[in-house]
């Protein structure tokens, strides 16, 4: 069971604020999955390597060659607020 304090801490780590309704729903879902995950306890996983790369491809490289990229206008087209050709955010340094 996940405790309210812990749930709210995770929300804050994930930069999320939960409504009361979300909190209730998410707690239920959390507990369901965590409960199922307890099934792993019955397995001996001591000598099993974690599987991180499904096709065993690693270090895929390509030549470092200059290529065409996007212009500023295209890249800024989706920015919610912009100023002087930059993305605008609130003041970071006092």
């Amino acid at each position, binding site marked *: 069971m996940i405790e309210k304090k812990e749930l709210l801490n995770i929300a804050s780590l994930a*930069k999320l604020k939960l409504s009361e309704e979300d909190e209730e729903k998410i707690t239920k879902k959390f507990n369901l999955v965590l409960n199922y995950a307890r099934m792993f306890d019955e*397995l001996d996983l001591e000598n*099993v390597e974690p599987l991180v790369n499904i096709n065993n491809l690693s270090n*895929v490289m390509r030549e470092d060659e200059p290529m065409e990229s996007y212009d500023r206008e295209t890249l800024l087209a989706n920015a919610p607020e912009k100023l002087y050709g930059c993305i605008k955010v609130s003041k970071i340094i006092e």
Partner: protein
Amino acid sequence: MDLFSLTLHEIRDMMRNGEISSKEVLDSVYGRIEAVEDKIEAYLTLTKDYAYEAAESIDKRRLKGEKLGDLAGIPMAVKDNISTKGIKTTCASKMLENYIPPFDAHVFEKLKEAGAILVGKTNLDEFAMGCSTETSAFKITKNPWDLERVPGGSSGGSAAAVAADEAYFAIGSDTGGSMRQPASLCGVIGFKPTYGAISRYGLVAFASSFDQIGTFAKDVEDCAIILNYLYGYDEKDTTSLPIEFGDFKEALNKDIKGMKIGLPKEYYDKGIDGEVKEMILDGVKVLERLGAHVEEISLPYAKYAVPVYYIISSSEASSNLARFDGVRYGYRAKEYKDLEELYVNSRSQGFGSEVKFRIMLGTYSLSSKCYDTHYNRALKVRRLIKQELEEAFVKYDILITPTYPTIASKIGEKSEDLVAMYMSDICTVTANIAGIPAMSIPCGFSKGLPVGMQIMSKAMGEADIIKAAHAFEKNTNYYKNKPTL
């Protein structure tokens, strides 16, 4: 005869023979959309101007005598989490409601080159997280076979569009069953490829080690044709396989005598509706009559698949969705007093409840306290599941299971029943965990609603799936049934 109700290969032949133009085909499909879309709500965006321009160009090229490929002039739908340059790509989320990608996904670029025509972008569960298309922030797509029921998900819009003849084929994505499950519930074909076979470049990432783009099709021949255009190495996806798969059409019309089929008993267990189970076993009998050898097998690790899937996919989602911070693109909250609040308010208002849950489950599983007990253990069990399947495929060419435990549920019914919602992925997630290809093919009707049979093969064993599916289809013809709309 209504043009919209034909298959891709039938329409292709008629266009090639000069019987009809691409514009006439498009008229027929948009006419159909006009007639039924109010009821189905499969699309989030229609791209009519764009489509007619493309059709005109195809018709001109054909008139000039240019030899065009299979997909030239074929109207298609694309799931709204696949980037389309200059056309909104929302992921059915308030977070990306107004987002217009400056680039095309690799698959969309290939399809455009092949002359396929985008008629619209389809609805999905928000960020592809869900199995009913009910978590979409914008609309609820209905199952064409029963408008009170869900089409499945997350690619519910794409599946419903093909089932309702609102497109000849549709592109979707599959992270834990998001192509096969809606295909099963809507009575069409849904295909998820071997991991790495189709480039993910331009697919908005949910869980990168599971996500694959695939297709919905009206019949197996159409499916083989479409896959030919989607497969291939792409340097922009570092997990792309540098392998040639060949022509999938060669797997059509093949004898399946001697083919070895395994039926993993864990997938026929309690929780699977009796009538659904019967239908799958009847389907297997069809293949047996055609000369396939069928045996029951056991995959003891299968029961761990759902928690493995939830923990790893949510962990990856937590990392992938960190990019949505309200700064560079996407939703930005109107009110905030500093940068921290800009992040928190934008994310809290932009994401729906299911997405928040997955992000948080992932954040939790990756936290220093739980990394070993949750994330790392899930990765270990993932290896066991993959190994177990590899061993099974030494002996069997394909495995057959139900795609989904039941027929489509009523809208709103399952979103309240957490255990049922959770168990619904049980038949499909294994293929994503192991990176193997799988198809759902219509195999009958229960209470008037479609049931899908899942065929899985070893990685890169696509041809075996198509071979078996085509043999099955030719001897059953379930795909010829259409919903009354």
